């Protein structure tokens, strides 16, 4: 375990990535006493679901509806609409910065992991970055479920101690005199970054603005790109 820790971690991260075939060969080699998940989660999870259905603890159709919602309805497009509205409507922006949960609910977004929201605003002098060092806390109603990197050890460990180095890995180099504010969602608050409106977006409609806003810009690992498409009339 100690000889090739980096390789081990990289392997785990890769397995958690695109292919997503959990690599449990290490566990088998190392004779883990505590191992709670056998090598094939597919079968284990099927068996567990059947058991819980038979016991009346879950309803299969409810599970389908939950999956469908988080795959197709609850995602970063919601947050992008909040951001675009704040850019075009100063009164809305004010409400968003003073009572985020209520302002977000005005657009119809609410629910688990978004009950107590705080929106933090970027400016030429301040850049905000959100992390959960303890786990994976993330504002579901506006951003959906977090990407793997957000929940990973490299991100959680570094965001608070080396935010600038981490942001460079994302391709974002910040000037030295910009204040970097890192928000650890360690307790009951959930955070959304209000990114800067990009230059050259003056003529865009609210809808076109929302299309420019990336998930990462609302976590704080990116800026909103300058629009390249022709300004719609």
């Amino acid at each position, binding site marked *: 375990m100690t000889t090739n820790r980096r390789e081990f971690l990289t392997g785990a991260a890769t397995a958690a990535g695109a292919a997503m075939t959990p*690599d449990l060969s290490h566990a088998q080699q190392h004779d883990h006493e505590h191992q709670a998940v056998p090598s094939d989660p597919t079968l284990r999870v099927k068996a567990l679901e059947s058991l819980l259905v038979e016991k009346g603890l879950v309803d299969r159709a*409810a599970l*389908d509806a939950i*999956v469908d919602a988080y795959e197709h309805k609850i995602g970063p497009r919601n947050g992008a609409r909040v951001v675009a509205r704040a850019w075009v409507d100063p009164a809305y922006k004010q409400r968003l910065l003073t009572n985020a949960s209520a302002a977000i609910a005005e657009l119809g977004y609410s629910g688990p992991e978004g009950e107590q929201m705080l929106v933090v605003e970027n400016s030429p002098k301040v850049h905000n970055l959100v992390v959960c060092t303890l786990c994976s806390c993330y504002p579901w109603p506006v951003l959906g479920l977090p990407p793997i990197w957000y929940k990973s050890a490299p991100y959680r460990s570094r965001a608070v101690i080396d935010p600038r180095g981490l942001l460079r890995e994302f391709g974002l180099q910040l000037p030295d005199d910009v204040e970097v*504010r890192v928000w650890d969602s360690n307790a009951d608050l959930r955070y959304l970054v209000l990114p800067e409106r990009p230059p050259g977006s003056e003529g865009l409609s609210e809808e076109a603005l929302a299309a420019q806003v990336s998930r990462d810009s609302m976590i704080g690992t990116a800026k909103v790109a300058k629009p390249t498409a022709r300004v719609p009339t």
Partner: protein
Amino acid sequence: MNGIHDMGGMQDMGPLQYEKNEPVFHADWERRVFAMVWATDTPPGSRYQRDIIPPDEYLRMSYYEKWLTAFVALMLKHGMITRAELETGKPVPSTRKGELITAAQVPAELTKGETLIRNVTVAPRFQTGQRVRARNMNPITHTRQPRYTRGKIGTIERDHGVFDFEDTASQQLDKKPQHLYSVRFEARALWGEEASRHDCVYVDMWDDYIEPA
């Protein structure tokens, strides 16, 4: 608990692994695990069950493997399922059931959430602008006070209001509702003179986590 989950400030955890156009789930079993955890009316304590996954396994497991492991452990702990049932797949009546969410109830549940802020009067122990020190505490139970803040001095930036104290609520003890504050720690106060003098970390701290500085 001083576990592997409390990662803020650790170093050499490897490069960031960024997946472009990442799907919400990477396998069907992840969909089912997420939805089962979402839908099952378990008692509090799921986070603690994830915290106590042994460190080597915690680092190796994918995210939803951790969820699955903690979910099963929590249901076993509270008698919602038994080991025999897991082994045989044959259900016996549960001592504890919880409320069943039906498909018809899902749309409302998706927008409802929990009421986290408590509508009770509790005097705040600290004021905005006050300098505070994060207490040096090492509980072996669940805590939301990140290790990297302990003993460090910061400033109260905002009073979020009164919330249940997760450290005790997660153990089904007294919920101890109290004020939760946004505390600003300068990067140099946390990490020393090498850190940028422009940078800072905001951490949410309950009254019980801090003392006057």
